[in-house]
């Protein structure tokens, strides 16, 4: 996936779970490469659904959606798997593999990309230091606090230097300190690596240092506010 000018393009996007019950409708918007974007809206407005469509878990039922120039409308499984190698995804509930150690969880995208063991280990060590979890390589997720687990998820999302990071309520379950760490990491990825960051959240943090775009969802339609 190339780092294009507009990395996400939606035209008249229509998303639904049940037939004729739209979650997102008539939505046209685009997200520039390297930008930091917030998507907000009331509970049940379709924020997470929209994010799901970005990583291909929900296919558009109408309109069009392109990520990095790849259409997600009729994407095949093999192509979707390929596309996902360029995405880093963070969830509110972390979605770590409980049976795997912290180190293996962080390595996951690198293993999928086919890097050698040495490269995987070196990159994982560097990332765990970056998210302040050095020394916890051999811990299992359930042995860590919520904030630590989310930092592991953050390290995993950054491991393969993704073009886009998609974060669904990344600090929703975290205390103030852990939230601050996560925002710093997301800002760092955006500023230093030029990674496009798309965050679905209830509230935008006050002390963010990077410029950002804000999309708001109301009655199923996505509006660009700023």
């Amino acid at each position, binding site marked *: 996936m190339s780092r294009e000018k507009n990395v996400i393009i939606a035209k008249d996007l229509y998303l639904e779970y049940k037939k004729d019950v739209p979650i997102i409708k008539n939505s046209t918007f685009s997200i520039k490469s390297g930008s930091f974007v917030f998507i907000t809206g009331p509970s049940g407005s379709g924020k997470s659904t929209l994010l799901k469509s970005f990583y*291909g878990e929900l*296919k558009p039922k109408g309109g069009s959606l392109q990520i990095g120039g790849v259409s997600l409308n009729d994407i095949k499984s093999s192509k979707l*798997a*390929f596309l*996902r*190698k360029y995405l880093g995804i963070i969830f509110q509930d972390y979605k770590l593999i*409980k049976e795997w150690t912290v180190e293996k969880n962080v390595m996951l995208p690198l*293993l999928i990309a086919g890097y050698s063991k040495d490269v995987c280990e070196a990159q994982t060590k560097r990332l765990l230091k970056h998210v302040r979890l050095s020394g916890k390589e051999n811990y299992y997720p359930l042995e860590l606090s919520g904030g630590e687990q989310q930092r592991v998820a953050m390290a*995993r999302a950054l491991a393969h230097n993704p073009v886009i990071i998609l974060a669904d309520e990344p600090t929703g379950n975290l205390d103030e300190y852990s939230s601050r760490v996560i925002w710093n990491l997301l800002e760092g990825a955006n500023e230093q690596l030029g990674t496009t960051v798309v965050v679905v959240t209830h509230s935008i943090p006050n002390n963010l240092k990077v410029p950002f775009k804000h999309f708001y969802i109301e009655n199923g339609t996505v509006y660009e506010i700023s």
Partner: protein
Amino acid sequence: MRSLKNHISLIIPLFAILFAVEFYFIISKIIAEYEVNLSKDYSIIVVSKKPLTLPELKAVEPDIALIQEIDSDLIIKRLKQNGVDVNYEELKNFLPHFYKVYLSSFPSADMLEHIKQVLRGVDGVTRVETFTKVHEKMYHFLIFLKKISKFFLGIIFVTSIMLVFKQIEIWNLEHSERMYIMALFGAPLWMRNAILIKLSVIDTVISTILVYLIYSYLLSTKYLKELLGFENITISAQDLLKDMGWLFALGILISVVNVLIVSWRQPKIA
């Protein structure tokens, strides 16, 4: 403990399949050897006015492996024993040629009838005796054994495949979250299923070893050794090991195919 239970749940049906297949292999081997032994013992008696040769008979029936002339002295001796009052020297000059005709394989009833007709058409042959009744009894017994073992193999195979399928479906549910997360990061199908395939391979190895050990023990028991030895049938350790190779391959095939079917049946995340 749960992990052990999970393994046993797959090992039992896999073991049942492999045990049944090996049983079929052994029965087939026993029957094949028994057929060879029978064909060696079995012969057709041909009475001819003229001397017969093997090439002459082979030309009309290629399945004929050997002919053996019965010494006329033996026939005279038997008549003497029975106290038949004739001039034996004179009789000897008038006696036709008696032959034992051996076949290369154990014949079916139809084939035997065909051979009988062919031999009757040979110049000089006056009588052909196949001892059909004895032959048919043995032959039908063999066919019955083959059919029974095939039937049981079929039943065990179908039931066990269903159990294997169920167990892999349970595994799939247990691992669904991990597979989902892997899919989110673009892992291909084989990578997501690697753990299930690994578990299947381990259980197939265990099942194959168990089948090998049980059959090795059974075939080394005095009773079976004597029974098989009585019919000159041998099943060597090498034969058994070769079978295990096939069983392992079959077990892997069943497991992998089941893993893939179960995976495809899972709801797609995209």
